[in-house]
């Protein structure tokens, strides 16, 4: 079972999936780190983004990797508006309230998708869907490799924004000290909305990388929500490094785990890790105690 020839492809598979998980988790951890919101709608938003990529390809023939230039700004705008006019308004600051609001938004989005597009699972076909690339003894699907590279690049861009731009500085200020940020003239509500937008923009990118190797249906978000939370909690709420490493780790665990336990029991392993982390080390690997 532990022969390299079986383990190696599984490992690579896990890493490529994990990279996309990491990108999804980055958005979630940014939203948590800055707004202290556990965004239950993250999975549903990803689902909508996937449909976006799907329809851009199906109706307009735009290649998913090209549609990044549309999806990222579109998701950013959606996130900004959603925070500014729905989520930010509804919260009243209470933990459970925001949780319920984002849950409500998730329900609305899922069922909107169900209503508009029915429950059929859809995939897209591109020229390279079935192309594989040899890496050592493994044959890795090209879309997955591109996903890995793309996710890494997107994460890099995000980190660059956070470190070098004024917005990034403002975001970090608001995350650390809300009142203080207000006092120095930062428009905190605007920054929060920007952060939420960026978090969703990550999903836009992730969707572009994900769809070629995956599928979409209205319920696909559910599966990603828990995995994303697991990664964020494992890596540490608000920690970028944690989200990246956590994503790769979870991807590998899922892939290697399913070698032993089969696919669905492998998934269970992830949730057991989640529970264990929540109970025994809620600050995760890199985070501060929430």
């Amino acid at each position, binding site marked *: 079972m532990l022969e390299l020839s079986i383990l190696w492809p599984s490992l690579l598979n896990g890493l490529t999936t994990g990279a996309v998980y990491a990108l999804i988790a980055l958005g979630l951890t940014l939203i948590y780190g800055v707004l202290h919101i556990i965004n239950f709608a993250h999975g549903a938003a990803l689902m909508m983004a996937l449909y976006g990529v799907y329809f851009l390809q199906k109706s307009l023939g735009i290649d998913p990797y090209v549609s990044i230039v549309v999806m990222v700004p579109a998701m950013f705008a959606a996130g900004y508006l959603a925070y500014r006019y729905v989520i930010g308004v509804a919260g*009243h600051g209470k933990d459970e309230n925001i*949780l319920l609001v984002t849950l*409500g938004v998730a329900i609305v989005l899922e*069922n*909107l998708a169900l209503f508009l597009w029915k429950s059929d699972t859809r995939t897209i076909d591109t020229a390279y869907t079935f192309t594989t690339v040899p890496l050592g003894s493994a044959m890795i699907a090209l879309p997955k490799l591109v996903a890995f590279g793309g996710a890494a690049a997107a994460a890099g861009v995000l980190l660059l924004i956070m470190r070098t731009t004024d917005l990034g500085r403002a975001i970090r200020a608001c995350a650390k000290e809300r009142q203080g940020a207000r006092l120095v003239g930062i428009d905190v509500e605007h920054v929060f909305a920007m952060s939420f937008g960026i978090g969703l923009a990550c999903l836009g990118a992730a969707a572009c990388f994900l769809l070629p190797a995956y599928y979409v249906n209205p319920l696909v978000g559910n599966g990603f929500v828990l995995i994303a939370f697991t990664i964020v909690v494992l890596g540490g709420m608000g920690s970028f490094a944690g989200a990246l490493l956590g994503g790769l780790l979870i991807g590998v665990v899922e892939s290697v785990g399913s070698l032993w336990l*089969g696919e669905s029991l492998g998934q269970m392993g992830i949730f*057991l890790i989640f529970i264990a982390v929540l109970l025994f080390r809620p600050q995760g690997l890199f985070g501060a105690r929430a």
Partner: protein
Amino acid sequence: MRQLAPIAVFGVAVALLPLFVTSGFLLNAAIMMLYVTLLGLAWNILAGFGGQFSFGHAVFFGTGAYAAAVLQAKLGWNAWATLPAALALGAAVGAFIGALSFRYGLRGSYFALVTLAFAEVFRILANNVDFTGAGVGIMVKLKAGPENFQFATKAGYLYVILAFVLAGLLVCWWLKNSRYGAWLQAVRDNEESAAALGVNVFRVKLGAIALSGALMAAAGVFYAQYFQYIDPGLAYGPGVSIEALLGPIVGGLGTLWGPVLGAVLLQLLGEGTRGLFENAPGLSLMVYGALLVLMVTFMPSGILGVLRRKA
């Protein structure tokens, strides 16, 4: 004491319903309203009275449903006999999850997430284990007769679900009028103050989640008997978890009648939506989701919660 009278009136009124209503459609609607009320009553015990918001209450529901189905299908138990077993199992699962979560101080969003994770774990387990019929699920064999918890007419089911709901209402009445209930609500409102006043916070929370789990398991048993089929998605999926929390949030957290009011309103809203848009899939749920957002934004303690404040 004065709160008991309305419960009795409610019970009698509903019990008399089959005398005046014979339409299967309407009786089914009443049964579903009561069923959703039961889900809400169970969730409300932990969330409304105890302040711990669970997003994975299906974990208890599924346990009860599978207890009923498995004990009958695999071990030949009588249907009614599965009820006490389901209650015990529901309480046990509650105590297990509660002991872990509360021992390690999980609150708020973290607690909500861990309950969700547990529900998923159980769902995956049920999906992969022969004992529960794996993905195919289990059918409860047709064995007509009240002694088998199966009724020829809807009225029979109505009486059973009514009995469960009345039990739930009595439990909530007890929470409002007992020492334990006072302790529980104190823990909800401020754990530290409660501890400073001699309340064993851990034990109190544990009791609440066990109680909530047991009542939720009873709803699961009813479901298994009424629909005669259960599978992992129905048992442990997010659908039930969400159904359980919508009623109390709309109707009034931590109130006696909130879950009832919520269930009735949601049912009416659902019917109205279905009527207007002719069975479009997902539409009524979408409306529920929007309602959730609206309620939390403008009336976070629910309709009855707001009315109580103004009194």
